[in-house]
């Protein structure tokens, strides 16, 4: 068997496993309704935020703290137009609104590098949150608003759908010339520019695509909370979590952030209600330890161990 057929065979097997996994996940509400569906919805929420964050920030090294802004825009889109328009359109509009915001922000700010970019994106979240708060108090006269309620199975299926689309988009971007361009930007932006990469265009487009998925996820999750206000929708926590989960999981592979966020959300579900401080403490400690000792995250560590293990096997025979 030559290498090409071996490779297609491997791809087929991976594809089949993924398909089975997807079918199992999609039919979950049928045979295991209730809590596990709700838990998986929140896991999917963080997974979507983290993977979308990694699409842009992973290869380029630009630390964006704007996820909360895009997520929040999606939430607000859902709250404002949700009752009048069919739900799939609402989700689409939530995504598109974030996409447009990201285009604007990206075009304005991607000249900023390093910590300036991080700080600006963080400021953006706080600016929108405070401006929204001011607007609500002074113009609509209320603080916060109610979102229409949707049953949790539907929320789950929507999140799963967004997740699948996101993974497809992420894989395509990673394998396309844009993925390469992003990586070259991360390594040496000047050099990338000189080799003919349209640096600004690539950065802005990918930044906006990543924002689209965050916004779409936000407009679905809004219906789970039923009541939102600027403090909930634009909670800076949603900016910090994806960064941490991505670092913990490892950004080299796409499933790294998936695993990282799944583990953390699981941990959160169990600890945050009873031991919120302890959870946050562990969270901080894991972040510091991952940055110090796991440069490629959990997945990188497993790969390294696996490699060492399989090498030993070869040496013995």
């Amino acid at each position, binding site marked *: 068997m030559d290498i090409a057929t071996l490779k297609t065979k491997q791809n087929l097997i991976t594809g089949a496993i993924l398909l089975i996994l997807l079918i199992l996940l999609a039919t979950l509400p049928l045979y295991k309704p209730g809590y596990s569906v709700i838990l998986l919805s929140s896991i999917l929420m963080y997974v979507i935020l983290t993977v979308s964050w990694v699409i842009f920030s992973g290869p380029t090294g630009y630390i964006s703290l704007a996820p909360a802004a895009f997520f929040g825009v999606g939430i607000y889109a859902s709250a404002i137009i949700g009752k009048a328009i069919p739900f799939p359109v609402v989700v689409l509009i939530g995504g598109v609104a974030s996409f447009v915001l990201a285009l604007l922000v990206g075009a304005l700010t991607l000249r900023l*590098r390093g910590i300036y970019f991080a700080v600006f994106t963080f400021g953006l979240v706080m*600016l929108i949150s405070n401006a929204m708060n001011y607007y609500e108090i002074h113009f609509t006269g209320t603080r916060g608003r109610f979102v229409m309620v949707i049953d949790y199975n539907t929320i789950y299926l929507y999140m799963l759908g967004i997740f699948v689309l996101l993974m497809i988009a992420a894989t395509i971007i990673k394998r396309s010339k844009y993925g390469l361009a992003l990586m070259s930007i991360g390594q040496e932006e000047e050099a990338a520019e000189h080799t003919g990469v349209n640096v600004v265009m690539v950065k802005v487009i990918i930044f906006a695509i990543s924002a689209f998925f965050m916004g779409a996820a936000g407009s679905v999750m809004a219906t789970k909370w039923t009541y939102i206000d600027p403090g909930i929708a634009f909670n800076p926590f949603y900016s910090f979590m994806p960064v941490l989960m991505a670092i913990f999981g490892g950004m080299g592979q796409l499933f790294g952030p998936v695993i990282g966020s799944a583990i953390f959300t699981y941990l959160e579900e169990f600890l945050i209600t009873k031991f919120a401080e302890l959870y946050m403490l562990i969270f*901080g400690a894991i972040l510091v330890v991952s940055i110090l000792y796991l440069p490629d995250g959990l997945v990188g560590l497993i790969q390294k161990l696996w490699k060492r293990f399989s090498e030993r096997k070869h040496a013995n025979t």
Partner: protein
Amino acid sequence: MIVTFLNVVIAGLLLGGIYALIAVGLSLQYGVARVFNISHGEFIMLGAFATWMLYTMAGINPLISLVISGPFIFLIGFFLHKTLFRSLLNASPSMNIFESKSMLATFGLLFIIQNIAILIWGADFKGYSYLNVGVNFGGAVFAANRLVTLVYAVIIGTAFYLFLAFTRMGKAIRAAAQDPKTAGLMGVNINQVLALCFGFGAIMAGFAGALLSMCYPIQTTMGLEYTVIAIIVVTLGGMGSIVGSFIGGFILGIIGSIVTTIEPSLYLVVFYFIFSLMLLVRPKGILGK
């Protein structure tokens, strides 16, 4: 009219003094040690709680307890740099990577310090009353503790500026800020200097926290709010510049005070707006190089 004007300006200066002091530490840590310290506010919180504890439990005058709590906070900062940031620095192939890694590590520190504090002191507001008497300024009345705060902020800032300008250690710090490699070649013990700078940044935050605790109620979750203000001030004044921090602090203080008189709920919006505008127009700040 004049009284309102005085009121607004003096209130702005009082606020600006604290803002400046908060920002000096952050500016120093980033300007020299290249650590953009998101956990800066947590050191402010530690300073505030140390002062509160010493005052309510041992009855020690807050202005004197600075001398007791300051060195402790300095040591925390110093050893954090010696351990955590030093190994990050050694492991990072370039300065850019170190900057983003160390910034993310300080996020972790934020959560660690804040939640240890919550486990110890809880999440309620704490406070005490010290020098809470009115002082009249041509019709405008201010609490004495705020005036003391401003005076202290200016004294600490000036002392630190003189230290940097005229002492041998100060020169070493400035040399390290300009070019760490060459400074190392000239015989500056660069690792020591960076750790000292981080410690100095922490002690500034501690002082600011001690002063804040005299004027405002304190809370274990207060840190991030002040970190954000410090970031805005530093962006305004320029990273790594002490004079810039004071200019930025006073500007922001006065703007905050003006906006608060007109429309109190708008001042954060205005702060973020100025901040965003500054980053877009002149990211290095007023006095940045």
